């Protein structure tokens, strides 16, 4: 095979891996949107907060230490212990569930039956609050997240694909972390699908997503469902936070991955779980391939805007997204 094609293939595979991460973030949006009609602007910040909490717990950081030190004139920073990654992850899941309960109790409960735009504004407020709260709680310095995921190029893949090309081809260069992310995302999506199709709570969740009144009439508590879906969204945010955090550190910019999810949602539709996944993959592959082929001609850095232009084209030609139902205006 000509090396040029092999390089393109490598770019594609890496694009798929990046797409998996986009899909993960988009999935969090879709879950909440489906169940409550809320476009959750805070989803990216949730991922940041989850990652911060995970690092903080794992490294035995004392929460609010800056605040405590400023108020009491003390100088405490660490408990002096380190938790195993798995323990820290379980605790972080607990924190995300707690957060879901707090959000329901203090925000959503008061906004029942409000216009979508008001709910949207509320999540913007929530996003900025969480951002500041995360800073105060865990500090704003850049942190490295290490839960023991493999890093670096996979030698095995390189060795076993080198034969495909000629002299100058050393095999596909694929990050092990990306491979793990792909597997984790696949497992997550499959279990979410099983949960929503075959469990009592999953069915309740779909019921609420479909019709609130009817859901109430069969004995489903909307408040419980909201806590449930925000917990799941928090869990998905944690997974996304771990993957992105392991790749590029835990810092404010992690919350911006939410912006990458927007074009994914426009492609996949706001209510479709398969849409979020396929949309994420298309954008991942699309932007990497575009950068590889067209990028050099236009001076590179196309990854910054490619996804948005693609989404825009989609809005023009297929506004309902890949998997959305065709919208026919009633007259």
């Amino acid at each position: 095979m000509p090396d040029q094609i092999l390089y393109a293939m490598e770019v594609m595979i890496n694009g798929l891996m990046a797409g998996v991460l986009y899909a993960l973030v988009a999935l969090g949006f879709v879950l909440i949107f489906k169940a409550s009609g809320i476009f959750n602007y805070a989803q990216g910040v949730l991922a940041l907060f989850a990652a911060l909490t995970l690092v903080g717990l794992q490294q035995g950081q004392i929460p609010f230490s800056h605040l405590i030190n400023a108020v009491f004139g003390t100088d405490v920073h660490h408990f002096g212990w380190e938790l195993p990654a798995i323990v820290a992850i379980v605790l972080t899941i607990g924190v995300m569930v707690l957060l879901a309960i707090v959000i329901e109790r203090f925000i959503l409960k008061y906004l029942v039956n409000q216009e979508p735009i008001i709910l949207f504004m509320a999540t913007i407020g929530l996003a900025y609050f969480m951002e500041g709260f995360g800073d105060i709680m865990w500090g704003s310095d850049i942190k490295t997240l290490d839960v023991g995921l493999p890093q670096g190029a996979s030698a095995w893949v390189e060795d076993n694909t080198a034969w495909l090309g000629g002299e100058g081809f050393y095999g596909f260069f694929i990050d092990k972390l990306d491979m793990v992310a792909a597997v984790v995302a696949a497992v997550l999506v499959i279990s979410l699908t099983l949960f929503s199709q075959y469990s009592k709570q999953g069915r309740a969740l779909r019921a609420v997503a479909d019709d609130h009144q009817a859901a109430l009439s069969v004995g489903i508590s909307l408040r419980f469902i909201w806590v449930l879906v925000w917990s799941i969204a928090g869990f998905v945010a944690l997974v996304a936070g771990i993957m992105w955090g392991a790749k590029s550190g835990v810092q404010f910019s992690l919350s911006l991955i939410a912006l990458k999810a927007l074009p994914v949602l426009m492609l996949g539709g706001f209510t479709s779980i398969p849409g979020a996944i396929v949309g994420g993959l298309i954008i991942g592959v699309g932007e990497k391939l575009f950068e590889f082929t067209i990028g050099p001609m236009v001076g590179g850095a196309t990854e910054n805007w490619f996804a948005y232009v693609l989404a825009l084209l989609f809005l023009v030609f297929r506004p309902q997204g890949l998997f959305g139902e065709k919208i026919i205006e009633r007259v």
Partner: protein
Amino acid sequence: MNDMSQGYTTADGRKIGGTLMEMKNITLRFGGVVAIKDISFDIREGEIRAIIGPNGAGKSSMLNVISGFYIPTEGEVWFRGERRPQMKPYQVAQQGIARTFQNIALFKGMSTLDNIMTGRMTMMKTGMAAQALWWGRAQREEDEHREKVEKIIDFLEIQHIRKTPVGRLPYGLQKRVELGRALAAEPKLLLLDEPMAGMNVEEKEDMSRFILDVNDEFGTTIALIEHDMGVVMDLSDRVVVMDYGKKIGDGTPDEVRNNQDVIDAYLGVSHD
């Protein structure tokens, strides 16, 4: 009317029991609008109780009070001999009161089967953690519920649309699925808001038969709102008549039919 505190026997020989539900001096206001004005009535175990009245009389509002969707401004709701504290609709459902809606509220994206399965939500015991830990047991429970649901599907003669998303079904069948979902909860009290509205004669006959059979075979107490007087007279044991939020009649179909206030209300005699 004769004393019925211990129940009574209908003309067709069905035993009607004691009071299941009692509404005491219910008033419901929406701002300036008084939807229900100081109404009291009871529903007895095993009976089919109709609520009738002209458009806007407050019938649906009354059903919504019973099912917890509206909170009465004044008055008390008694269920099974106890005063019911203020409850959310889902809590009322968990007490064994199931309902259908005047403007059908189904899960449009789900199949007939799934819609009726959600009706069993209140009967499902296994919690979320248990479900995750003992997948096998949860599966067994699911199968048992599934069996009950299949019986309801057979009963309502809708086997051919089991897998169809209900949003695609014609109106009459949607009404039937909605009834199925309510039945799936094995309710003590079944509330039906105009179950036959918008149906053709044949569909109405089917629906009437289902309602009678449910009452007869499962002993389910039913309260229903209906506009078609013929249907009301055929189905119901006792009738409450409402007009402009007030109760203007209460009794057997025959008694109500001969009540002058009721006749006036239906003939549109002016209120002054």
